[in-house]
């Protein structure tokens, strides 16, 4: 089974802070990580390879330092990595990102493409389905469980819903987006880290990809960011301490009634 896993390098969002004086984003000292939802995707791909044989290729689009997340995926057990890096790719919205990644994937052989459900920085969950559409293959999002049928032609997955899950059967090739619960991503061990450095890591530019720079990156993006601003910071309100529970409960209910919340 040949599996392609598109991944993204993201800032550890929980550590991103706003400078209270300027209201701007502080990114210095914020570590960059492999998007946590992509870890489920990488792990799922490696488990398929271990069970059925085949090959796992991770692909990312980003600046040269995005190589770090590819090395992590290789250290976990992926076989090959592709880094799409070029100034022409920069500033891409979800559509232009999906277009760039799908152009690369079109050149490769695959049975399955597995993405993370969403990236924790942008939180859009759009790139996966957009890649599926551009590749012309079916998609199943929010996958919590994955099994390949014996003949290797179909997969049966659990797709998380608002109330539980659906059992969905889909013919390959297909694209899945992985969510929490699919597996427990492994930590790379020392051997894995050593081996990763020797595994093939190919760099692709807009020229080698062979598409028009006008259709990708900032130029090819249908959406533009007009402005960014800091949200109003939420402040704590009433805090009751050391009161007996009954009196506190009474005050709370009065408060909620006054707010029209109950």
């Amino acid at each position, binding site marked *: 089974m040949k599996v392609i896993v598109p991944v993204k390098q993201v800032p550890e969002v929980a550590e991103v802070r706003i400078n209270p004086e300027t209201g701007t984003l502080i990114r210095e000292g914020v570590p960059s990580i492999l998007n946590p939802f992509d870890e489920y995707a990488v792990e799922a791909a490696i488990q398929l390879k271990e069970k059925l044989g085949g090959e796992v290729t991770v692909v990312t689009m980003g600046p040269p330092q995005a190589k770090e997340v590819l090395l992590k995926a290789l250290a976990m057990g992926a076989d090959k990595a592709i880094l799409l890096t070029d100034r022409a790719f920069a500033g891409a919205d979800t559509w232009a990102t999906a277009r760039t990644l799908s152009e690369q994937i079109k050149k490769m052989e695959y049975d399955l493409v597995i993405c993370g459900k969403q990236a924790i920085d942008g939180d859009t969950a759009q790139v996966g*389905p957009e890649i599926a559409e551009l590749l012309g293959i079916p998609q199943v999002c929010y996958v919590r469980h994955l099994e390949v049928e014996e003949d290797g032609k179909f997969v049966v997955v659990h797709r998380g819903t608002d109330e539980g899950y659906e059992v969905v059967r*889909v013919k390959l090739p297909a694209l899945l987006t992985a969510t929490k619960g699919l597996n427990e991503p492994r930590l790379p061990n020392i051997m894995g880290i050593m081996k990763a450095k020797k595994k093939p890591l190919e760099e692709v530019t807009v020229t080698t990809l062979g598409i028009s720079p006008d259709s990708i990156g900032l130029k090819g993006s249908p959406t533009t960011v007009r402005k960014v601003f800091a949200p109003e910071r939420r402040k704590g309100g009433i805090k009751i301490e050391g009161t007996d529970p009954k009196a506190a409960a*009474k005050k709370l209910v009065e408060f909620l009634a006054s707010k029209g919340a109950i």
Partner: protein
Amino acid sequence: MVLIYDKEKCTGCMLCPKVCNFGAITKDGNKVRFDFDKCVLCGSCQEVCPVNAIKIERKAVDKDKIAQYKDVWVVCETAEGRVRSVAYELVTKARVLADNLREKVVAVLIGSDTSSYAESLIQQGADKVLVVDDKAFADYTTDAYTIAVTSLIAPRKPAIVLFGATGNGRDLAPRVAARLGLGLTADCTGLEIDDKRQLVQIRPAFGGNIMAEILCPYTRPQMSTVRPNVFKPRERDVSRKGTIEKVEVKINPVQIRTRVVNRVKELAEGMKPIDTADVIVCSGRGIKDPANLALPTELAKLLDAAVGGSRPVVDAGWLPPSQQVGQSGRTVCPKLYFALGISGAIQHRIGMSSSDVIVAVNKDPEAPIFEIADFGIVGDLFEVVPAVIEELKNLQSER
């Protein structure tokens, strides 16, 4: 699009590095330097520059072509033969946007045996309802719904198309966008019309640490998924008139490449999903034992609320994954949120800090949840919650 920096004009006032959210501008002697790998052309620097030394050139818009696109559409989500509440919220908001543009609101109702809801969408503010009613749409499938939506949009040319940012909405909208080569903005919490009649889409990013205003200047329709519970549905006007148009969309079974073999409900009878709930009672580590969930469940019943859990509660298997609030679960914004025995780690706050009213009960007076709670009670939830339940019962019997 390009950014042009006029070094001659620049006075070195250093305002622009301060407003850049992307760290793309640094001091360079008594001038500045731009890092185009980091710059997203957001225009913050252009706006702040007092001497117009920064200019961003954007592609010219073909106005004639864009003017052909009219009306504000809402793709109304159905589930189990009913229209979901988020559809009414979006029709209400679409009405405001359409009035601003002096255009119409068109509701798109795709389902099986759901056409009886068309009237309710008109009463909510739609001028027209496009009804696609066929067995092929009884269950949501990406393929069938994408075909239906794209085949309606492409010839009719709406200016704006809104989807609910629900599980299915976020599965469908990007598929439609990619098929038509359109821009799409995810999970919007604000929508406005600017002086150029463009849709300004406001959404949180970086876990809610920043807000972004997004435009779709060159493509039509402008498409957004919109977070449930953000816009409140207005009262329905039963005398409102509108037109209902039945549209046939042909689906060939071979076009549907996924098959739903089974549907499993993990929520106990009477439990509500957190996604669209008005009130959520969420428990954290402080609940200690799954048997103790009876307490928040009782509170939830009184308030017609959904029962949610923080990561440890869901990881322990005490609540199904669909009910997890937080970065690795779901982002919610109910009108009222109870955080019971939740310390309020940043990963949890990312998922709930835009709730209208937050109530926190925690033993630890230093718990970070109190920093964002509108009403915090420092105390044992096993003492406080029963007292709250009693107070609510008293209030309800008075009413």
